[in-house]
């Protein structure tokens, strides 16, 4: 019992730490990657001076994220004279909290056996094992959609309660756009659920650990390449980033639904957006890129074809799985940033017709084809 508490507190601390680090670092990564893509240098001036010395740690401007956060914290918290101050105050948290909660059902590693990891505590932990996932829920994917649906309410609350026409328009746009793309995300993932036969994200990741056709890792992206593309597009639209950033289109709506927010309240919106980039990366990794799996790797080491076995200790396996998961998330985040700095913005009617007339029929077609294939495959197998 108390062992559960210890393990899950460690898991939660890890998850929150990872998300906060991603949220802070991605602000820097985004600026830096955009600069490098445009033959510039990018943010490289913020530094931390070691106390009592003249040693300045610049680290390629890595501390710009910290500087941003500090700036947000000490700025004046301007409040508009709005008729609904409660909704105004609560909206950033409604956006921010569900984004963090989504990570609870995402498995960030394989099976943890603390007894093997810490032999000194073997007597206390016994031979129990814990999957590296904060909440092992049967309804994993459903929980993901439930929580990411909540952020829509936050955006609409912010737009409605700011007593500002621009915010109002931004809130309207956010509502219609996010609901449209929520539908597309759900439908693209249904094909994957059909193939893996579960909505439990832990099970989905475990089923992606093998090899298919002799050389391909059994990742979702090879079963459902089309759905992977649609999912990533719809997820970026859901996150309101640039090809789809109509709710906060600065050339039309100043800052959209958070025009009236300042200081850390506005920072929460920004932070939620950047954490959601990482969450999308984690979801995409979990669903389509095999999660923490590497090809030819299982819970006891690598087994290459030709019975060439590289055994690994349990600690090494756990660390490898954690690192592999983080690296995959980083790559997907970097790809999202690449998209954000390459594509021009849609027009608003184009965004909605793209969702309803293009993505939705395609995802339904993908689902139908997958259903037929799964049915025929199972029919031939049994």
């Amino acid at each position, binding site marked *: 019992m108390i062992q559960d508490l210890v393990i899950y507190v460690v898991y939660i601390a890890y998850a929150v730490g990872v998300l906060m680090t991603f949220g802070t670092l991605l602000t820097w990564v985004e600026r830096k990657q955009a600069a490098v893509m445009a033959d510039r240098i990018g943010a490289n001036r913020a530094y931390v001076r070691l106390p009592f010395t003249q040693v300045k740690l610049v680290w390629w401007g890595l501390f710009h994220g910290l500087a941003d956060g500090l700036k947000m914290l000490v700025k004046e918290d301007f409040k508009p004279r709005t008729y609904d101050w409660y909704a105004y105050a609560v909206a950033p948290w409604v956006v921010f909290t569900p984004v963090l909660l989504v990570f609870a059902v995402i498995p960030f590693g394989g099976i943890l056996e603390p007894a093997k990891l810490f032999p000194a505590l073997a007597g206390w932990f016994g031979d129990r094992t814990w999957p590296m996932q904060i909440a092992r829920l049967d309804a994993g994917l459903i929980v993901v959609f439930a929580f990411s649906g909540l952020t829509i309410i936050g955006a609409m609350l912010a737009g409605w309660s700011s007593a500002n026409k621009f915010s109002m328009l931004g809130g309207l746009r956010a509502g219609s756009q996010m609901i449209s793309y929520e539908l597309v995300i759900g439908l693209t993932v249904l094909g994957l659920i059909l193939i893996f036969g579960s909505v439990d994200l832990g099970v989905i990741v475990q089923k992606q650990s093998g090899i298919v056709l002799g050389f391909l890792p059994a990742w979702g992206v090879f079963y459902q390449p089309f759905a992977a593309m649609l999912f990533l597009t719809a997820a970026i639209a859901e996150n309101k980033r640039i090809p789809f950033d109509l709710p906060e289109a600065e050339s039309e709506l100043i800052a959209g639904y958070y025009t009236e927010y300042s200081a850390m309240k506005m920072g929460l919106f920004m932070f939620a957006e950047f954490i959601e980039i990482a969450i999308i990366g984690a979801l995409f990794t979990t669903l389509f890129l095999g999660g923490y799996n590497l090809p030819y790797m299982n819970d006891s080491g690598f087994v290459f074809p030709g019975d060439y076995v590289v055994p690994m200790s349990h600690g090494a396996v756990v660390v490898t799985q954690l690192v592999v998961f983080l690296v995959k998330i980083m790559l997907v985040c970097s790809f999202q940033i*690449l998209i954000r700095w390459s594509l021009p913005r849609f027009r608003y009617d184009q965004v909605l017709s793209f969702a309803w007339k293009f993505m939705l029929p395609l995802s339904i077609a993908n689902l139908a084809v997958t259903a037929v294939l799964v049915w025929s495959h199972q029919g031939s197998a049994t």
Partner: protein
Amino acid sequence: MKPSAYQRKRYWNEHEMSWWERAYLFEILRGLGITGGVFLRNMFKWMTGRKGALTTYYPEERRADYAAGNRGKHVLTQRPDGRPQCVACNMCATVCPAKVIEIDAAFDPDDPAHPKYPSRFEIDYSRCVFCGLCVEACPEDAIRMVQDVPDLPAFDRHRMWLGKEELLTWHPLSDVAKPYPTAKRDDNPRGPA
């Protein structure tokens, strides 16, 4: 009259998109390839110790290609004895459009030919527009502009003032390019230099 549906204007040089381009996805992938390629190229340059950008890290680095006619810094000329040639007439401070020159005049009983001299001569480079009008206004050729940039990036605007000591860098005897006329005191019609 029935309102007609809106017809978008067709321009004579409008680009006809092919089937491939209208499918959009392939062109997106091509665009991502271009930007990603630039990113990877610049990252590779950076990892191999080269710079992936044209940017100069001012103030740590200076560009080597400042124009030969660039005049970015003031100097106060000196007499051979090291005193400033300036007579504190305030003409440069009057003509300065940015009002950045501040001069305090003082009396020097030891030099009867030039009894008035600047005890303080300061230029605020945070506001200077480098127009060169002070050089044109000076009747004594006491202020000049040289091919340099003021090395003044600072976090504080009060650090961007240059005083008389910093400006008195041009000495006639050390200038090889434009030697000071070693005129005898007697044949100068305007009196001793």
